[in-house]
């Protein structure tokens, strides 16, 4: 015996052409709202730190002539010192929480190093920029020795606690500051890479702080026409394969953007 498991009521197709048209348009509109709304929500929920603008500092004599001079002050901390699990004891000295937006919470649990206080940098065009980095972290060997040398600065050198050098020992690199290309045709080519000298393994925390006395790395480079660039650290201070996972792939921590305006 044929047994119809699901009886269907004998309905005539409901709705005339106009109903169908309205239904179609409403469905398309809903789809557009869902997609557009999701795109917007996802876009605003991936914040990168607010832009850090280089500060004016007079003019400077360069091989390209007299250029306006700006300065930028950054620090590299080995870990967040407000989390007891990361600072190994009580927090002393200035509170440096590290970037804590979104997915970064999971990264923060592994107490990684980070650039502070922002990874979104804004530099003026056609200027000489002097960057001072206060480096508090220890070393990991670079993957490519190329990044143990200084590239792209105004005299090919950087100063480490006052001493000018063209490069450092690959085993003593803590991090690098490497700005490189955004693929826009017509924007000037721009490449700067400076290795950061590591704290020696015997360094002790300074008084009233969780970190040792910083090593100050100072270097100057010249910007050209306006353009968009990215920067990242080229020293494997993250986790996973070759140390390039985790923070190395995270904007706000060890990577960011540079806007030359």
């Amino acid at each position, binding site marked *: 015996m044929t047994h119809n498991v699901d009886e269907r009521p004998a309905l005539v197709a409901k709705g005339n052409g106009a109903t169908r048209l309205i239904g*179609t348009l409403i469905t*398309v509109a809903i*789809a557009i709202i869902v997609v557009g709304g999701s795109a917007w929500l996802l876009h605003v929920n991936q914040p990168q730190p607010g832009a850090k603008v280089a500060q004016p500092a007079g003019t400077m004599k360069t091989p390209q002539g007299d250029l306006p001079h700006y300065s930028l002050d950054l620090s590299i901390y080995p870990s967040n010192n407000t989390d007891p699990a990361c600072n190994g004891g009580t927090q002393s000295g200035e509170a440096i929480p590290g970037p804590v937006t979104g997915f970064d919470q999971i990264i923060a649990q*592994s107490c990684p190093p980070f650039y502070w206080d922002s990874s979104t940098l804004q530099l003026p065009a056609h200027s000489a920029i002097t960057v001072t980095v206060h480096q508090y972290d220890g070393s990991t060997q670079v993957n490519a020795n190329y990044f143990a040398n200084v590239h792209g600065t105004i005299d090919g050198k950087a100063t480490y606690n006052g001493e000018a050098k063209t490069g450092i020992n690959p085993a003593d690199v803590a991090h690098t500051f490497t700005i490189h290309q*955004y693929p826009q045709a017509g924007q000037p080519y721009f490449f700067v890479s400076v290795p950061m000298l590591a704290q020696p393994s015997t360094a002790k925390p300074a008084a009233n702080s969780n970190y040792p006395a910083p090593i100050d790395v100072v270097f100057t480079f010249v910007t050209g026409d306006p353009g968009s660039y990215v920067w990242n650290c080229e020293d494997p201070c993250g*986790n*996973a394969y070759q140390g390039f996972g985790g923070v190395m792939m995270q904007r706000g921590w060890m990577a960011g953007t540079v806007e030359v305006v």
Partner: protein
Amino acid sequence: MSVMTRDIHEQAAVPQPTQHGKPGGFLRHTNIFTGVITGLVLAIITYAIGSKLVPWGTQNATFQQVGYQALIAATYVAWVIGFMAGIGAFAGPIRWVLGHDLTHADAEYMAGKGQGKFRYWKYTTDHKVVGIQYLIMTLVLFGLGGFLAMLIRTELGITWAEVFTPNFYNSMIGTHGIVMIIAMIIVISGPLGNFIMPLMIGARDMAFPRLNALSFWLLFAAVPPLVSNLLLGGIRDGWTVYEPLGSQSPVGMIGYQICIIVFAFSTGIASVNLITTAFTMRARGMSWNRVPIFVVGILSAAIMGLVWFPMFQYSQILALSDRMLATSFFNPLMGGSVWLYENLFWLLGHPEVYVVIIPGTAALIELMTVFLRKPLFSYKMAIAGFVGVTGISSIVWVHHMYMTGWAPSAGYPFMLSTELISIPFGFLVLVMLGTMWRGKPWTRLPMMAVYAVIWNKIIGGITGVYLSDVPVDQYMHGSMFVVAHFHFMLMGAGLFAAIGAIAYWFPKMTGRMLNERIASIGFWVAFFAFQLTFMSMFVAGLQGMPRRVLQFDNAFNVSNWLSTIGAYCIGIGMVIFLFAVITSWRNGKPAPANPWGAKTLEWQTSTPVPLENFPVLPVVTSDPYGYGVPDPYDSVEKKMAEADQPVGAGAR
């Protein structure tokens, strides 16, 4: 009682199993909701207990946070096991262990008898129910993949800024890719292979009904781990998740790996089911030269999937092992090989594209005969085409690796084999064109899909010829040209064929006629928008745009704007088509048993299809292509044949 008078039925009486409890037993209480709840509960318990047991800070030699990775992996596995337990998948083995065999009433319950609409929410073995479940799942996966595609194109269209961070963008393209690939693998073999194929061969169900349900619910269990990757940092790698880049991704990658491992089981089980059904359950009289060509296509895809899917599964198992156990299968610094991963992946990766395209082609060839009212042109060439493609698909995979430097001299033999496979594929095109030749088309949506698909196949095919040449690939590999090529093949020839096939079998599966006006509008909007989107993408690739990039040179701006506009229109077209499907399904015109006047067996049973499919199993006496009238030009042929005879015998 003397021997003479003993009843034959008594002699042959087989002891029946005893009925334990109500028919269906434990399965009376399980459904998708109990499955999800059990899965979630088990996952949460595993996570809670595990996070107490495992120290978070544990790192291995490559600073991998082993503890956390293992915890997440255990949570995903707990979800899968919990879900399968909650849906009742373990009831069968447990009953077997306890010695409680299924009675006829149990089997009927499991096939959904007497449950009305609820049987779609349960572990139902009826192939028609599983087919519908696969159809819904496919639509959901396409919706998710399409949603991600819209976001991807938004990023690429807004060329003056980064809309999403590079990491999220890389995760989106990877997730879009794998979701679409999974959806395309199952789109025809799942709904139609399960629902239609047994009907088409005159069987009452598939060879392994309980495995049928298992393969669907394993797929269902595999999808949440995959989708959850976006919440756990993303896979940050393309759908191919090349190692060692994959090992740098956060824990979301484990979701991908678990999904593929489980999905491979699902596919293997489904393939075994399809193959066994096709080989052993054909109706009486359906010899191999009377089998509908659709069955041959499904069979080819199932064989390829069964043989090669384990390669993909192994690659993910080994990658998971690298991640959690610090093995170095793919870590070259510790003696591993990145090329090992690429080979394992592409050993599936290539046959997989044929798994996607062959069923669609077979479905279109099948329905062409109905809409042209012509027999299939050269059935033997069609078989040769499917067999040839299935065979040669195993020896072409290195053409995805021409540029890796793995084996430069391998370029020669694999270029040869890649060109060779175009010949059996050409047989299938010959069959389609030959069937179309001198046929009068009934231009309903399924037939119009054939025209669209052949056009897309032509474009995809010629661009494939370019890519198969190693020197040309030296320019094109890793550029948007490749992306456009495979979208033309997988989406243009695969998805549009699936739309045609679903439109064709819609009346039989749902009991309603599809609203063809709206469905056609959606289809054609999507088709022409598809041309705009991917032709512009070819241009971007030719201009030198690499793939998997979210920001690019200004030179590629115009192509990307055009592609994005096209993509939005594809989305609109697909939404319109979806609207047609849903509204027709809910209250379309009830369909007669055979609205197309087709001769294959599935149309010879009533709609809706009864539980046992056929009141009486059919006996087949000819192939299902007895359409058409004698060729009027045959009389001319006759005259010429007569004229060949010596003088005196003929009239000339």
